[in-house]
């Protein structure tokens, strides 16, 4: 039964996505989204399992694997995706091509999270990139096209590097299934090279510093809801890949006690935290600010990965429950908060007809729900209590403490303060009444934008805060 369910996770959105081309768009999109949320929630009740597609067993056949990580990630995609779809449903300025592409992204995400075959992983990555690039290109105008093209180039290069690694692995071990590969893994040069190029490829997709250059433009220029799903979900595909590579597939290599490779990741994460935070603090417009914040938050997730890798070098338990649950929790906190923030930011910009922060004062004050949504998002991203981000940060700090990694401990604390600093820029403007030097006069009359759009953003941000109450359930559910 659940085998069909697994297939439905991918086929259902793909099918309805394709049908949007031949049916009235919203008629096809509605069942696609509802089914996606339904299956994506149901997946939480299924037992972890491996499925050989079509009865073909590895090494020849493709296999899918549902484990704790993929279960929760799929559910995350379903919920963030479902709420973002609600926003898109009410956002009348969105071209109808959105729905087919978005359902394609959804299907590709689910397939990517399920697959246990490195080559199939490459295919899903590529599918995801194509759909995501097309989503960026939905925005009219040369700036968006340029951003989309740059995104495509980086993404393609990343995929090619990943495929190169796949080829190297196949040449060395003759199998593509992740479990078989892991069991055969040796610590030789070819394997290390494969790890290096695959990591590089995924880093480009996930916008890990220094390969983040494409992200601020692509995410800032995209349609509001597109920015939200790209930042919240699509870049997580690359990060999920890094998790699988470093803590699962190449674990025999990366968890050797003398392995120092994790520190490189930690260093890149650190630089990303500071550079992204700094740029977010000084960029003049709202959506680029949120996009730069993504660069910084990706840094946090990479730093967490590095600490996890370091943890596996200290003891031989591998990827323990505590480790992956903590990381997926952080990912979820970021996804919910970032989706909420982007949706709120986009709504305010629409209302103001303006992107520069300096011109948003009046629109911010007329959008209390959005300001509230942004405030909650900042709270969760910065790890202030009581939010999902806070519990995630507590986990991260405890992990750093256990590893006696004082430097990274300090980095994650400073990163939180930096998050507050750039979040403050926006919220401060929302509270300003502008007596004195700069009176708050709108450049143009405010556009009418329905309040329910603000409400959707608020729901997402509120979830990233209130989700903390489900912490115990989440941590104890599998234990």
């Amino acid at each position, binding site marked *: 039964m659940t085998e069909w369910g697994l297939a439905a996770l991918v086929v259902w959105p793909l099918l309805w996505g394709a049908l949007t081309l031949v049916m009235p768009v919203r008629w096809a999109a509605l069942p696609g989204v509802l089914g996606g949320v339904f299956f994506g929630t149901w997946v939480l009740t299924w037992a972890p399992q491996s499925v050989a597609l079509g009865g073909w067993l590895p090494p*020849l056949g493709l296999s899918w694997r549902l484990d704790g990580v993929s279960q929760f990630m799929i559910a995350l995609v379903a919920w963030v995706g479902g709420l973002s779809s609600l926003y898109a449903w009410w956002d009348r300025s969105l071209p109808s091509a959105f729905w087919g592409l978005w359902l394609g992204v959804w299907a590709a995400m689910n397939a990517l999270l399920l697959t246990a075959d490195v*080559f199939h992983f*490459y*295919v899903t990555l*590529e*599918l995801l*990139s*194509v759909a995501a*690039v*097309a989503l960026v*290109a939905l925005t009219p*105008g*040369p700036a968006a*096209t*340029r951003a*989309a*093209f740059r995104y*495509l*180039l980086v993404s*393609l*290069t990343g*995929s*090619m590097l990943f*495929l*190169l690694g*796949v*080829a*190297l692995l*196949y*040449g060395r071990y003759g199998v*593509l299934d992740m479990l078989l590969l892991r069991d055969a893994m040796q610590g030789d040069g070819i394997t290390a090279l494969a790890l290096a190029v695959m990591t590089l490829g995924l880093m480009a997709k996930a916008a890990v510093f220094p390969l983040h250059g494409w992200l601020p433009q692509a995410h800032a220029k995209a349609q509001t809801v597109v920015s939200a799903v790209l930042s919240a979900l699509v870049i997580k595909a690359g990060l999920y890949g890094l998790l699988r590579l470093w803590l699962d597939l190449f674990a025999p290599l990366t968890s050797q006690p003398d392995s120092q490779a994790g520190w490189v990741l930690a260093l890149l994460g650190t630089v990303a935290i500071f550079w992204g935070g700094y740029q977010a603090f000084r960029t003049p417009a709202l959506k680029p600010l949120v996009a730069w914040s993504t660069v910084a938050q990706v840094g946090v997730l990479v730093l967490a990965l590095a600490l996890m890798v370091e943890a596996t070098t200290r003891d031989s338990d591998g990827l323990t429950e505590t480790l992956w649950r903590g990381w997926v929790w952080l990912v979820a906190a970021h996804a919910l908060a970032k989706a909420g923030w982007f949706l709120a930011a986009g709504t305010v910009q629409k209302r103001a007809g303006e992107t520069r922060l300096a011109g948003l004062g009046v629109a911010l004050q007329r959008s209390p729900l959005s300001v509230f949504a942004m405030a909650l998002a900042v709270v969760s991203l910065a790890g202030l209590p009581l939010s999902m981000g806070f519990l995630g940060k507590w986990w991260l700090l405890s992990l750093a403490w256990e590893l006696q990694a004082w430097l990274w401990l300090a980095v994650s604390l400073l990163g939180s303060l930096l998050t507050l600093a750039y979040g403050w820029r926006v919220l401060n403007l929302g509270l300003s009444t502008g007596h004195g030097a700069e009176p708050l006069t709108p450049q143009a009359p405010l556009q009418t934008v329905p309040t329910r759009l603000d409400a959707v953003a608020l729901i997402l941000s509120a979830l990233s805060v209130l989700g903390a109450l489900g912490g115990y359930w989440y941590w104890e559910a599998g234990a």
Partner: protein
Amino acid sequence: MNEVVYLYGALGVVLIGFYGLARAGHVLQQLLAVNVMGAGVFMLLLALATRHTPADAVPQALVLTGIVVAISTLALGLALIRRLAVEARQAEKRSDQEALHD
């Protein structure tokens, strides 16, 4: 012996693609450079297939799939380039008209 030539040749093509991407000034060149890189990777896979007799079927299947994927991404890239060109022309026209109005 042949195999080694192909293997290193393939890696060489990948590096050429990289170099091209880094140096390319035009969007079309950039897109082509990525494709050259892809060709290198496919060549690597095929070279690996020849190590067995009869040739290993899996890499061939992978390459076929890869080519399909590469063609569709290439198409998307070309479409974007075309749109860039159109939009650039429109922008030019607009600025001409504005110049006339001034």
